[in-house]
C-alpha cells in the first residue's frame, strides 16, 4: 500500500509500524508449518538443523524417514492410514447426507423453532471434544460399539455434521427458490427437482461441507483416543503416541505429508468458494 505524497511523517511512521506488525503476525501464523518440511528430509536422527543442512550440503538431506514411514519394520502407519481413510470416508458420506438434508429443512421458511434446532444441531462443534468424547464413550461401551470402526464412524458423523449444516445453509441463503417452483410448474416431482436443479446449484456448499467433515474426521484425536482399540488406530492417534514419547524424524515426514494434503484441500475449498460466490452472484 503506497501512501500519498502529502502524508505527514507521524502517520507515515504509524503506517509502517502497522505493516511490520502485520508482517510479524503472518509470519507467526505460517512459519511454524514450514519448520517441519526441511526437518523431514534430515539425514540425522535428531530434530534440529544440522550444520550440513544449513550449508545446503546434499549429504545433509535424505529420504530415509519417508522410507521408514512406508517400509519401517514396526510400521504402524500403513494400518493407521487405511483406518483413517476408511473411517473418514464413511463419516464424510454420513455427515454430508444427514447434514445436507437437515440444512434443506432448516432453510425452509416454514421450519418451526428454527433457531433452537440450529443451536442443537451445531452444538457438537461447540461442546469441548473431551466432553463429547467422554459421553460418546459411555454410550458406545453400553451398546457394544467401543473399539469398533462403526462406533468411531458414528461419532465422527456427529462431529462432522455441524460443518455441513453451516456451509449448506449458507449456500442456500442465496438460493433463488423461484427456480424450484419453475421446475414444479413444469411438472417435475420434488425428488427430481432436488436432484436436477437444487443439488447442482448448492453443490459447492455441499462439497466444502464434505471437505470440512472429512478433515474433522481425519484429524480427530480425542474421541478416537477414548474409543479406539489397537485395531482401530488412526494417523492422529499414532502421531499422538509418537509425540508423547519423543519427537522423531518419521513423525516429521508424516506431518509433511499431512501438510501437503491440507494444502490440496485448501486449494479445492477456495476454488469451490469462489465458484459458489459466482453462482450466487448470477442468481441475484
Amino acid at each position, binding site marked *: *500500500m503506497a501512501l500519498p505524497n502529502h502524508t505527514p511523517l507521524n502517520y507515515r511512521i504509524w503506517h509502517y509500524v*502497522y*505493516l511490520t506488525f*502485520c508482517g510479524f*503476525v*503472518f509470519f*507467526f*501464523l*505460517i512459519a*511454524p*508449518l514450514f*519448520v*517441519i518440511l526441511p526437518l523431514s528430509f534430515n539425514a540425522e536422527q535428531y*530434530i*534440529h538443523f544440522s550444520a550440513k543442512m544449513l550449508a545446503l550440503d546434499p549429504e545433509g538431506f535424505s529420504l530415509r524417514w519417508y522410507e521408514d514411514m512406508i517400509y519401517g519394520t514396526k510400521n504402524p502407519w500403513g494400518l493407521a492410514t487405511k483406518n483413517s481413510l476408511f473411517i473418514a470416508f464413511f463419516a464424510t458420506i454420513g455427515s454430508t447426507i*444427514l447434514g445436507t*438434508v*437437515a440444512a434443506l*429443512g432448516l432453510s*425452509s421458511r*416454514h*421450519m*418451526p423453532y428454527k*433457531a433452537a*434446532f*440450529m443451536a442443537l*444441531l*451445531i*452444538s457438537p462443534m461447540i*461442546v*469441548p471434544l*473431551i*466432553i*463429547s468424547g*467422554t*459421553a460418546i*464413550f*459411555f*454410550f458406545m461401551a*453400553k451398546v457394544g460399539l467401543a473399539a469398533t470402526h462403526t462406533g468411531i464412524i458414528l461419532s465422527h458423523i*456427529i462431529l462432522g*455434521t455441524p460443518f455441513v449444516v*453451516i456451509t449448506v445453509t449458507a449456500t442456500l441463503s442465496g438460493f433463488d427458490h423461484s427456480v424450484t417452483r419453475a421446475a414444479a410448474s413444469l411438472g417435475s416431482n420434488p425428488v427430481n427437482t432436488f436432484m436436477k436443479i437444487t443439488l447442482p446449484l448448492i453443490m459447492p456448499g455441499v462439497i466444502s461441507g464434505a471437505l*470440512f467433515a472429512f478433515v474433522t474426521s481425519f*484429524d480427530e*484425536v480425542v474421541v478416537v483416543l*477414548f474409543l479406539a482399540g489397537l485395531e482401530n488406530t488412526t494417523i*492422529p492417534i499414532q*502421531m*499422538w503416541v509418537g*509425540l*508423547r514419547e519423543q*519427537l522423531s524424524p518419521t513423525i516429521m515426514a508424516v*506431518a509433511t505429508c*499431512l*501438510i501437503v494434503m*491440507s*494444502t490440496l484441500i*485448501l486449494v479445492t*475449498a477456495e476454488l469451490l468458494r469462489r465458484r459458489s460466490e459466482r453462482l450466487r452472484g448470477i442468481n441475484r
Partner: protein
Amino acid sequence: MSKEQILSSDGIPLEQSLKKAERKNKLKAVLLVAPLFLFILIIYVFPIGDMLFRSVDDRMITKMLPKTYTAIEKWDGKDLPDEQVYEALYQDLAYLKETKTYGKIIARLNYEKGGFSSLIKKTVRKLGKFEEGDYKTQFIKVHKRWGQNDYLVALKNTAPNWTYAKYLKGVDLKKDKDGNIVQQPEDRRIHKILWMRTLNVAFWVTIFCFILAYPISHLLATLPMKYSNLLMICVLLPFWTSLLVRTSSWMVLLQQQGPINDLIVWIGLAADDNRPELMYNVIGTFVAMTQILLPFMVLPLYSVMKTISPSLMRAGKSLGGTPLVSFVKIYFPLTIPGIGAGCLLVFILAIGYYITPALVGGASGSLISNTIAYHMKSSLDWAFASALGTMLLVGVLAIYWIYNKLVGIDNIKLG
C-alpha cells in the same frame, strides 16, 4: 354484512387450502430435519444426559450391600448399632465374598473414609471363621474399627442413591463426618488451581488472539483482492492443517535445542548451557494455543470488516477527524460484532482444549480437560470425570447461549 368467501378452483375456501399447504410445507421441513435431529438426540444428547446421571449416581454400593442399608437406616448414629446391623453386614459380605465382587465396595468406602480398605479386606478374609450368633462381638474381634462409631457413620453416609460429592470434590470441597461442607485439606486443593488456570489461559489466549488478529484482519479487508487472497492463505492453511501437525511444529520450535532457543542464545539473552524452558510449562501452552486459535479470531473479524465501507473513514477525515479519532469513533464501533463473535469463539474453544496443553503444557500447563482425560483413562474415576465434564459443559453452554444471543449461531462463517 358477511364477506364473500373466495373459493379455489376445487371449491374449497382459499383460506383453508392455503392453511393446508402451509401445514404440508411445515411438515416437509420438519421431516427433513428429523433424521439428523434423531441421530444427534440418540448418539449425542442422551449420552451427555447419561454422563450427567453418572456424575451423581451412587447406587452401586447400595445395591451391593442391600441388607446392611435396610438395617442401618434405623440407626441414629449415636451409640454403636445393634446386632441386627452386624448380622445384615455379615450376610452381605458373605455373598460378596462368594461372588468375589467386594473389590468395588472397597474403593467406594475407602473414598468415603480412609482405612476401610484394610478393614474390609481383613474382615472378608476372616469371614469363614465366623460362627452363627452375636456377630457384633465377632466383627469387633476381627477388627477394632468395627467398634468405632466413625466407620459405621461413614458406612451409613454412603446410603443415599444420589450424591453431589463429586461436584464438591471438583471445587476442592468435601463433606465432613457431620455432613458439613468444608474445604479439602491444603495439600489436596488442586482443582481450584486448575479451574483458575484454565480460565486464565483461555482469557489471555483470547486477548492475545484479538491483539494479533485485529490489525491483520483490517489489512486483509482493505487490501486489493489479489493481494489479500494471497495473504488469506497464511490464515487458511494453518486452519486446514491437522492440529497435531501444528502442535508438533511448536514442539520442534520450543524444544531446548530448538530454533527459538538457538536465537535467544545467539542474541545473548541466555547462556548456551542455561537455555530457558519454553516447553512443558504454561509458556508453551500460551504460545501454541494462540497460534492455533488465531484463524478463529481472524475469520469473523475479517467478514465484519469486509462489510465496512472505506468511504466512512474518508467521511470522518473530511469532517476534520484525525485518523485516530475517526478510527475510535467510526471504525472500531462498527467492528464490535466481529470482535464479540471472534472472542467468544476463541474463548469457548480454548477453555476445552486438550491435545495442545497435553503435549506442550507439561504439568504446570495442563488444563481441566487434561484432568478429565486423566480420570477417564488412568484413575478410572468415571463419575468424577463426568462431574468435571458437566461443570465445564455448563460453563461452555452459558457462553454458547450468550454467543447465540449476540451473534446468532447461523452467522458462523467458515473459511
